[in-house]
């Protein structure tokens, strides 16, 4: 794993994108069973419905202190510099963005969830041992926020 740093023009903001070329490394680093609630959204710069709902995840990151939002791009490794980094800068995403470029999908999609057919967007929520996965889109921020809060409040 390594980091690519990019600066956004004269702004002080910078996007830092961790790259995982193998699922195992991603699993160890990202899929944590600790005290936090993680909202992990799988997307790509080429996926129109994903791009449409990214602002809702960005808002969730800013507005909902109960969760950590991780935006997992499934773009190709070769598209990191020319597509992903400029995209993240342009959309001014402040939620954590990482790149998972392991193309051996059949080997790892089931490890996220058996029900995942491979379509994106898809979202995984983890809180300790509890998991909720859905291959679905969110129409607006409220829908996403209610969905996440329903998971958090269900004990």
């Amino acid at each position, binding site marked *: 794993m390594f980091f690519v740093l990019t600066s956004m023009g004269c702004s002080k903001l910078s996007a830092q994108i961790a790259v995982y070329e193998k699922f195992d490394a991603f699993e160890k680093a990202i899929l944590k069973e600790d005290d936090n609630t993680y909202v992990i959204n799988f997307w*790509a710069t*080429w*996926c129109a*419905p994903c791009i449409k709902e990214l602002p809702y995840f960005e808002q969730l990151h800013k507005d909902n202190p109960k969760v950590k939002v991780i935006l997992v791009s*499934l773009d*190709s490794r*070769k598209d990191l510099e020319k597509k992903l980094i400029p995209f993240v800068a342009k959309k001014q995403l402040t939620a954590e963005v990482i790149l998972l470029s392991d*193309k*051996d*999908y*059949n*080997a790892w*999609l*089931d490890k996220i969830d058996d*029900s*995942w*057919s*491979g*379509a*994106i*967007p898809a979202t995984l929520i983890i809180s300790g041992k509890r998991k909720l*996965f*859905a*291959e*679905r*889109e969110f129409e607006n921020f409220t829908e996403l926020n209610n969905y996440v809060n329903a998971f958090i409040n269900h004990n």
Partner: protein
Amino acid sequence: MKFLPLLILFFSSLFLGETTESNGYQPGDKATDFKLKSVDGKMYSMADYKDAKGFIVVFTCNTCPFAIKYEDRINAIAKKYKSKGYVLLAINPNDPEAQPADTFELMQEKAKEKGFAFPYLVDEGQKIYPQYGATKTPHVFLLDKNLIVKYIGSIDDNSDDASAVKEKYLENAIRALDNGTEPSPATTKAIGCSIKTKKKA
């Protein structure tokens, strides 16, 4: 309570919206035949191919980057297996109103530009893909001559780079079918673009 049925309908539709499990085919199921229009203006059905040993049904489209990365490979497979008795039929499941780059005219252009050696069919009214349980493009279903599903999934294990492929899942499955054995694996998974439908009111 007159409104109760309506309420039930409302809630059941909510739950339907939440469903993640698809109700499509599993290996061993019998697939439905179809009669769909191709880019040449003619209608195609699997029943038209009396001598076929099997069918490779590929849900694909004009626009998805994964479909584009695979279009040359799909064309090569269509050509390679035609002479062996396996018929490849591609179906575009996207609603052109939801994905304007998937109109019939643009499908014709794509087929001409890429020299598609197979029928490229329109899933008119989006009636076929839900029966198969296709969720994304590309999404492949291999059927035997009796339309029994033998393999579901991806073409191979590297969408990015055809030269880096280690497992040719689809071709291995065709070979197994040709040898009279069951494909293994019978299902694989891959990332793809969701099938585009108009938002229901």
